[in-house]
């Protein structure tokens, strides 16, 4: 396959990752969020594998496999089990002003392209055009964490942000060193488990996973 064709495929997959980022931003149902997240992971893994093939970087295959196992299978499974156990599958979030959120998201993408343009000029990697998308994915994940009130949605936002970071590493330098990547993967796995514990704790303390209830934790200074 020609390099040009591979670059096109990479661009397509990146576009899908970004699209899923927007999807995560707008989706209200918990299960659907989970599915979108898994799809994002799948496209990310495919993207990584193609970059590995195109650039001939052996260890990226491993990263792709890791992404596939962790973000497409394991973490969605853990979250799925958590959602079932806690019987929150019916929860539908009330979100303020989805269109506005999406508009902010678009502005972030534009900003990302703007910020990344100097780097793209200097880079010679086949992934240079995706760097801006990677940054945008990070920003969209953060935006999702800001706009959501449900704890599970927050966690998915956080994981989407991590997807963006991984994506950025692949686009900028063909991935991080293997050691770092393994460490990050382990961290994410542990984080998912800890989130599970927190869900239960938050639920028992506040009888809800709505994080706005946590405002009660604020220290009362009593000036």
């Amino acid at each position, binding site marked *: 396959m020609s390099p040009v064709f591979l670059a096109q495929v990479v661009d397509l997959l990146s576009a899908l990752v970004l699209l899923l980022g927007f999807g995560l931003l707008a989706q209200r149902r918990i299960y659907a969020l989970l599915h979108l997240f898994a799809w994002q992971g799948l496209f990310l893994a495919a993207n990584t594998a193609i970059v590995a093939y195109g650039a001939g970087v052996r260890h990226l295959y491993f990263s792709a496999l890791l992404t596939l196992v962790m973000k497409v299978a394991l973490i969605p499974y853990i979250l799925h089990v958590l959602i079932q156990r806690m019987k929150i599958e019916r929860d539908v979030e009330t979100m303020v002003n989805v269109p506005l959120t999406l508009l902010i998201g678009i502005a972030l993408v534009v900003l990302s392209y703007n*910020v990344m343009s100097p780097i793209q000029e200097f880079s010679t990697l086949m992934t240079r055009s995706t760097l801006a998308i990677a940054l945008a994915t990070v920003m969209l994940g*953060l935006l999702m964490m800001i706009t*959501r009130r449900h704890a599970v949605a927050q966690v998915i936002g956080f994981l989407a942000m991590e997807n963006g970071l991984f994506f950025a590493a692949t686009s900028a330098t063909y991935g991080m060193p293997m050691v770092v990547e393994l460490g990050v993967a382990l961290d994410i796995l542990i984080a998912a488990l800890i989130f599970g514990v927190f869900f239960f704790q938050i639920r028992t303390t506040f009888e809800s996973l709505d994080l706005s209830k*946590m405002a009660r934790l604020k*220290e009362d200074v009593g000036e």
Partner: protein
Amino acid sequence: MIFAPELLASPTPIFLATLAVSLWLAGTLLVPVLARRPVWLIRSAFSLATLGSALAAVGGAWAVAAAGNEAIVLPIGIPELPFHLRLDPLAGFFLVVIGAMGFFTSIYSLGYVRGIAERRPVGGLVLFFLLFLAGMGLVVLADDAFLFLVAWEGMTVSSYFLVVFEHEQTANQKAGFLYLLMAHVGAITILLAFGVMAAFATGLTSFEGYAFDAMRRADIAPGWATAAFLLALFGFGLKAGIVPLHVWLPEAHPVAPSNVSALMSGVMIKMAIYGIIRVTFDLLAAIPWWWGALVLALGLVSALMGVLYALMQHDLKRLLAYHSVENIGIILIGIGLGMTFHAFDLPELAALGLIAGLYHTLNHALFKGLLFLGAGAVQHATHTREMEALGGLIHRMPWTAALFLVGCISISALPPFNGFVSEWLTYQAFLLSPSLPSTLLNILVPIGAAGLALTSALAAACFVKAFGITFLGQPRSRHAQNVSEVGITMRIGMAGLALACLLLGILPATLIDWLDVIPRQFVGAGIAESASSHGWLWLTPIAPERASYSGTIVFLGIGAIIGLTWFALHGRRHRAPRRGPAWDCGFEKMTPRMQYTATSFSMPIRVFFGALFKIRERSSPMHVHRHAAFPERVSYSLHVDDRFWGWIYKPVSDAAFWIARLTTRIQGGRIQVYLIYSFLTILVLLIFGR
């Protein structure tokens, strides 16, 4: 590399020193292995500590005697940043302090920790005791800022865990927290001081300047040198317990187990003295006269305030801890005089000041170690440190009493023991100050000498109180009854220190001969030639016609008088002396409560210096019958607090709380808002940080 076989056949001082540190560190491995057999753990670990300490002392003494200056580089630590070790005479001297104290304290611990092991697990105590020794050993061996700070923090953290060893007590937790907090502030300023010097050594782009050698060669601008000196003085002063940075010391030292208190008071705070000497005389080298004057002034204030606060204490170990503040002050007086003389290019006098400071460093380590071990023995036997509950222990613990008395005489600077020699040398340095070419100093220094004299007198009064209330008279509570003498290892540890105090007191000229290489290294002159010009018997620091002292002859004289008196009393009489109750003026209802108490003994001084303390005294009669003149009971409470707490620390902590309260305004309690803070930060950085 350094453990090559041929070194075992012909070891060098630094080999012995590193072997000692390795032994201390290796001892920590015994803790998990023997966790279930505390008796064996105590025996093996403290034997190893004793052996390591002996090696350290021998290696250090050898390095001083041979004027050696060996350096090795260990390729461990962070890549590209190897550890540099060096054993020069100054490091050797402080290694002797660590080794000697470690040796006797470890022997003592063999018995003392057994007593603790009956009540609670001692694995942590053994572990951190060994790490503490190793940390201190590495502090003096370090020849780069990196290893120095690693060792320094290792020493701090392990001593923190020793302070909070009995962590269920609130006093220990508070003292530990205060200690840790202040030690970290100090470590930061030390780090900054090294940073300034390293920056001038090789610039900010390279890490090569972190080696002390590079700092020695650096050409530091005077302003920055002053900044480095002040930062270092603050950081080391915190550890040393210079007034007003001393507040952690009387809290932390008493609550640690007594063998640890002995090491903390005897050795750890000396590491700060080492740091001050190393930074000023060695690394910065060019010393303006006012640095010396500042150290001198701080020393004087510390000495005087330390002893005055010590007099107000009725907790035996707290009293000793305040005396550490006092003695650090005396050491700094010697070193400050040395710096001043050095700045005015008077090398012999600078050498005298430096030697006086170093001599007192060693002396204080020995007698303060002895006193803390003695206090530990008292606590071990009576389970209290409260002097008001003690009394009459001399009959039940004669060994401890006699050895504690030796410590008291030494610290009170009375001949023939060692404290006298070093304070006498400090006075000699003071008396030579008229040769200074500065009128201001010529006026101020005699005041300092007078202050030192007052300090010595007050210290003597304080130890009359400490010894008298604790060991003499009648038991003041049931704590002091039914006690028995401590075990043989504890007595050996204390006796060894007492003997060392005596030897350093009667052989000063020999010791100064040995020490002389250190001032030669830093100020280019020594005093050994003039000091021992009349042989080992006479100490003549500058010239025999000026001043001379012979500890040996004083010792023999005192011994002869005691012998003659004893002979006169007991020699010719054949019947045993009759023992009877003390004369009670016919009152016949004497109770132990009629004795002097620690509080009443120090009352005149409390009244006289009242302005310096924060005193809350309350006395109210209770159960008054018929007339106010016949109360059945009187309740009396007295709190004497450190004024510095209110002057310096309270405002700082209040300000910290105030700032913290300001930041709560941005604490809305909503996660989303916090996330927006990060989000906006990232956006701003992305947009404007390009």
